């Protein structure tokens, strides 16, 4: 089990997609558990025929879905728990939300232990992406990413100005079989869309 922790616009999704692209292009079957329903199938980097996209409505279902995919021996299971925006409101319905803190707390260590054991037993890789590290010592590798400056082409306010990409600084903060890495500078290039 490996983990990516990154704030929004720091390149966590880009890294997750790169892992899925590499695995599917190598002929492996992959699963993406995406409770926020945020996957964009338009870029052609991933071989979509080998990707199973699961969109659970509930985070607890997301963890169970990842477990089912690992048990079915998918080579790479990506669990995208990163939250970008608050849940959408349903128009015309007045929502009264009660906060039950015990129910809303992050999944406990037990679930990460179970998922790590499941991945090991069935020979699959589980890649968890979230805004903060969650799996703790159950993760074999934890990569943390920070935002850097964005890159724009053209002068401000002029026509033809384009977003060219963004910079990020990544570091392996936890690696079970070695020492943490030094910070690595990543270039996130926007290829249009």
């Amino acid at each position, binding site marked *: 089990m490996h983990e990516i922790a990154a704030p*929004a*616009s*720091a*390149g*966590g*999704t*880009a890294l997750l997609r*790169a892992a899925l692209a*590499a695995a599917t*292009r*190598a*002929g*492996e*079957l992959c699963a*993406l558990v995406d409770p926020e*329903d*945020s*996957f*964009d*199938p*338009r*870029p052609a980097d991933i071989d*979509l*025929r080998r*990707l*199973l*996209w*699961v*969109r*659970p*409505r509930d985070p607890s*279902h997301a963890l169970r*879905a990842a477990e*089912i995919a690992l*048990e*079915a*021996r*998918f*080579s790479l299971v990506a669990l995208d728990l*990163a939250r*970008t*925006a608050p849940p*959408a409101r349903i128009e015309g319905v007045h929502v009264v939300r009660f906060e039950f803190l015990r129910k809303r707390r992050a999944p406990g260590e037990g679930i990460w232990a179970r998922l790590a054991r499941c991945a090991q037993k069935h*020979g699959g890789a589980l890649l968890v992406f979230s805004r903060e590290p969650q799996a703790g010592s159950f993760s074999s590798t934890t990569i943390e990413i920070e*935002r850097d400056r*964005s890159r724009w082409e*053209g002068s*401000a*306010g002029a026509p033809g*100005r*384009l*977003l060219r*990409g*963004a910079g990020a600084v990544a570091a392996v903060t936890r690696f079970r079989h070695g020492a943490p890495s030094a910070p690595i500078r*990543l270039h*996130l*290039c*926007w*290829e249009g*869309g």
Partner: protein
Amino acid sequence: MRVACLLVPDLSLVAALRAAPHLATAPLAIVQAGRDLGGRALVIAANPAASCVAAGMTLSEARSLCPGLDAQSESPERVRAAAQAAVEAACAVSPRVEETAPGLVHLDASGLSSLFGDERGIARALVASAERVGLCAAVGIAEGKSVALLAARAALADVELEASPNGVRGGAFRVVPREEQAAFLADLPLFALASSARVPGLDLDGDLVETLQRFGLRTLGEIARLPPGPLAARLGPGAAPLLRIARGEGEGTFVPQHPPERFEEGEELEWEATSLEPLLFLCKALLDRLCARLGARGLMARELTLLLRLEGGSWDARSIELAGPSREAQPLLQLLRLSLEGRPPVSGVRAVRLCAAPAREVLAQLPLFGPRTASPTQVAAAVARLHALVGEGRVGMPVAPDTHRPFAAEVARFAPPPDETQPRAAPAARPAGRDEVPLAARALRPPREAEVRCDARGQPLLVIGEGALGGRVVQSAGPWRTVAEWWTDRPLALDSYDLEIAGGLLIRASRELDSGAWWIEAVYD
């Protein structure tokens, strides 16, 4: 031609025991369908534990002879499913099968020795195949359909009904080699030809058999020795088929039929089910039997149809298309639960029928080197389980639909291509010193509404959105205009911008041209 015959004795009794195997050892009688279990209902069949009860007795007679007798009404749904299961059991052994009557199946036994060894092996495979679908069967193999049926009826004496997890077992077989056929027929008593309620017969007139017995003829061997002319003069047109059977010359042509395209299991309720739990309890039993039948044929369900017969006699039909073929009862039950909870039946349910459209199980060669990967069966089962967990339309292969709408996505049926036989190409090496990753967009579905303040030139200055999706705009690019789908009810006309919010968040926002409303469609990540 060597023909095998699979005969399920007392089909209505075996069908009832298939649904409730624990009753195999208790005295049980099956009475006519559609009658209440009052004293005047006629007994159709009884199990060996109620040996003193015979077919044709009234229930009160039967209960006076066997005080602890349990009685059940014959269920046409169960009988229909058991008869289908018998055909499938035969189809699992030979592709050339003919269903002569419910519970009586003939199959072409020639050419099967390479699969099952000698004819005893074929007969054993047929008995085992019937047991896999919860049936106890007598099997006969001989030359021609009628002699094979007589051999199966001879094997009935060795059948012992026993409970099994799927239903009942304890079948028996009798193989009549070609050279011993004359001797086998010569010793057979004439009453073996007569039809009875217990087993279907050879369509011979019961009066004819009685007349022969009055002539002093007791066995088939005695009839075979008679000259055909005088026999026809005395017995009329019925003499010719009788003589052909007695001489083992075969009666009836073997006409192979297509195997069934739908697998069905059904059950009738003694009272109306008005709540969900009893219905699901019943569906679980039906699914277990259906999955066992599919498994016996190496098939999986690609679509389920649930038919409920309601109080007034009308049918409530609902079809569940599975995201992937499966024969795991638990996820299929979960899908049935979701369907029943979503649209409960309008009145009480009197009968349930579950039909599965089969798909062939795809088997893959496991790799000799390297880790074991997902087999197609495992993948299909996992997709079905995920479908049951997350609901309809939320699992499958992602597809970009043919539209100009930004970040539109759909799911299609997940059907990964088979593994390449060529060695997989190594991923292209990245140029040294360049750690470039394509920037990705996280779509917001549905897009979140925002208030955007712009300067005099229309360039966004401030985004007021939900949560972190707001702030002062520090960098911007755009607009890019999209005008499309004007020929539909939902025309698309918007200006899109790439914005950097103070703090570093990169977003894609769009302004609708007709209403002027702003939407945040994606976050670059």
